[in-house]
């Protein structure tokens, strides 16, 4: 059985004009990109549309991708930036979560514990969506993309101190909101 092609090979094929190779990259990363978009928008349809737009944008900018680095973190950063720009265009500051429920994983825990997890997850999602757009973006990049302050500042084209203070204020707001939900 032949091994699946590496991401590097897929990117190289795409750069040579093989759109089907890019399709394979989409299949591998669409789930994680969708989750970035869903955390930013809170609405499934918007998240699906933005997922598509993210891959279209990434395809157009594939020449800027560094082959030495993994594709996943790069495409997720493209997603976060695109979502942020779209939210700024819509001038939507705080959003509301739709009725989406986290699909339960088959992890052997009881139904009550699962229900509690789902409720906690819904509270956390709602709290994140209530953050102003820029705060949501820094939380997304720090906590879910795990990039450091300096990289966040470069990504969002903000001063380093602004990133720090936005992140700290966002966490304060999250803590307050989640304490209220208890």
């Amino acid at each position, binding site marked *: 059985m032949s091994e699946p092609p590496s991401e590097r090979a897929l990117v190289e094929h795409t750069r040579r004009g093989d759109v089907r190779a890019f*399709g394979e990259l989409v299949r591998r990363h*669409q789930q994680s990109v969708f989750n970035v978009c869903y955390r930013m928008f809170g609405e499934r349809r918007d998240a699906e549309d933005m997922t598509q737009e993210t891959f279209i944008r990434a395809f157009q900018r594939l020449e800027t991708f560094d082959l030495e680095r993994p594709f996943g973190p790069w495409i997720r950063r493209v997603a976060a930036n695109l979502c942020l720009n779209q939210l700024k265009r819509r001038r939507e500051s705080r959003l509301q979560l739709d009725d989406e429920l986290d699909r339960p994983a088959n992890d052997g825990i009881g139904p009550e514990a699962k229900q509690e997890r789902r409720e906690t997850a819904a509270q956390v999602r709602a709290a994140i969506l209530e953050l102003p757009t820029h705060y949501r973006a820094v939380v997304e990049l720090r906590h879910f993309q795990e990039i450091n302050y300096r990289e966040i500042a470069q990504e969002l084209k903000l001063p380093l101190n602004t990133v720090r203070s936005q992140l700290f204020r966002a966490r304060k707001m999250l803590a307050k909101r989640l304490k209220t939900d208890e």
Partner: protein
Amino acid sequence: MNEPLNHPDEFRFHEYLDGELSSAAQTEVESHVAACAACSRTLAELQTLFEQVEGLPELELGIDLSPQIVARLERPALTLPAIRWVAVVQVLMAILLLAAAWPSFQLFTSSWPEPSQLSADWQVALAERIGVLGEQWSVIWEGVDLFVTSQAEALRAGPGLMLPQLGLTLLAASALLVWLVGNGLLLRGIRHKPPVR
């Protein structure tokens, strides 16, 4: 037990958990927290918040978006050389039409007075000029009407009479066709958003 003074400011704990501190600064925070119950609680609360946020489970996408995305990317866009050629042809046709219309325009403006001939009472002169223009426009529209009628008669009469008028007609028709085809090609390159479900 006396709690130590020099509590780190709250940002320090964020930076500590984010891994942004040097090893020396990390050790300093850890030593302080080990000896200070209040700061230990603050750090623990912050850590709990981090775990709550980062513990958010992923949602299932549920569908495969790759076919739609690949289809959008495979839709052929108009190449830059083709756009350039279409634009050049459209400009040439526009110039030809203007050149063909130039004698008529000269005839139209030949009866206009020179600016220095306008009387001081320019309002009266303007009103007169507007009246004259109105008459001239009527003449032009009568001419257009006559032209269209003559084309129809020429077509009925036979090929001998068609050439002078037909040239201008063909020129106009060609320009229109090139404009339609050119813009159609250009608009084909625009990608449409997916339809609203």
